[in-house]
């Protein structure tokens, strides 16, 4: 067994294969961790397309950093790369001047039919400061202490933000009859 059941902790032999940039080991790591990395990217970036691109770039970066991988904590190592990459991406985005002054919804455009019961894009409804802790809590299932360490916020304020997020979500689901 290269992986202990129920957690993403890998044995030393597997970590050594990763350090050697063994492609099969890397593919296994990708298979097991891509969903989690993508979820973190969606949480921070709030956009699925951008999260797909970020996931690709994060794994590429991770592959290049593999020779320096320390024993244990592969998951936290990868998730830290993901977090740093996404926050860098946000900073880069903020530096770029935006030319958006009118949402496309205000224009008369043809939109593809939505499937019945399809959810609205909750990510775009939630501001960054609410979306990030909410997604960390409900999607990554981190506890408040872990989120507080990542985001450098108190557990109390994180609880408030998560509650606000759930209220926004509930309102939106009610409005869409979901």
């Amino acid at each position, binding site marked *: 067994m290269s992986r202990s059941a129920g957690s993403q902790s890998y044995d030393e032999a597997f970590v050594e294969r990763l350090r050697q940039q063994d492609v099969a080991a890397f593919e296994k790591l990708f298979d097991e961790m891509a969903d989690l990395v993508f979820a973190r990217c*969606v949480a921070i970036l709030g956009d699925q397309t951008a999260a797909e691109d970020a996931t690709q770039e994060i794994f590429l970066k991770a592959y*290049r950093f593999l020779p320096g991988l320390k024993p244990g904590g592969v998951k936290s190592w990868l998730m830290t790369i993901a977090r740093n990459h996404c926050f860098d991406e946000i900073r880069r985005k903020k530096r770029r001047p935006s030319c958006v002054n009118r949402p*496309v919804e205000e224009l008369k455009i043809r939109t593809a039919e939505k499937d019945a019961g399809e959810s609205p894009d*909750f990510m775009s409804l939630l501001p960054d400061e609410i979306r990030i802790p909410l997604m960390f809590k409900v*999607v990554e299932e981190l506890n408040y202490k872990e989120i507080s360490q990542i985001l450098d916020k108190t557990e109390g304020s994180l609880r408030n933000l998560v509650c606000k997020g759930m209220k926004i979500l509930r309102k939106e689901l009610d409005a869409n009859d979901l």
Partner: protein
Amino acid sequence: MTCENFSEWLNEGNFAAGVDELPEHFVEHVKSCSICQQALSVQNFEIAKLKKQATLRPEVKKRILLEVKKQIAAPQSEKRFSFAAFLSGFALVILLCSLAAISFWGHGPKPVAYVSGNGKLLRNATAIELSPQQQAVLPGDRLHFADGGGKLAWDNKDQLQIEGGAEFIVNENSLSMLNGDARIAFKPSARGYNVVMNFSSLVIVGTVLQLQARPDSDFIYVEDGKIQWQQKDGGKTGFLAKGQGLTISARQIAEMTQSHSEESGQSTGSESSPEPVLDVASDPVLPD
């Protein structure tokens, strides 16, 4: 324990997938209270909706892995820092810059991109047939893709696939579409590049587009991904997501220009002009 206590607990940002995951002091009450059970299941329904939006689709996961493997197989540009390597790299950069400068001054302009496929490259009134082999595109060259299209790469990496018959000028960070119909699939690496049409410009966010450039209008349809579009002359701007299409015509731009000049007091008579409405394409047009 009461319903009020349980509701308070939920409102403090606590979650539980089921009764078994609740703190011990709530279990008894929730098991016997249908209202609290309902509140718990509503919360779980909301969480499921959020989780769905953060789920990586299998086909996308597969695509990302393929792309990562492809880039891993390519020569690596990012390596671990070493001062000696940095110095030799620095020396190499200076050498390459010098060679590039010599090459530029001695042998003409540097290619802006590389193209392969079916069609013609028009350079100084000479037509060069395209082939499956990559051909350098110099500044000012015009690309005329015949049916079937081709591939265009900036910096020697495949960046986009063009299908259909259309004419383009390739610039350093953008592609100007002059006329014709085309379906363009951008790889994630092409993110940030622009497509400039007759009446609009589009910022690529990793996407598949169908485009028509006509003398009097541009038509844009997003098959996959998302783009940021802007009318030429600093007009309207916005995003188009998957499944959305838009026609931007010369008439609208003319109306808008007129509207702007009226607003700024250059016109007499009307108090305020109506906002120009963009035409809507009835159906996406797939190039043959």
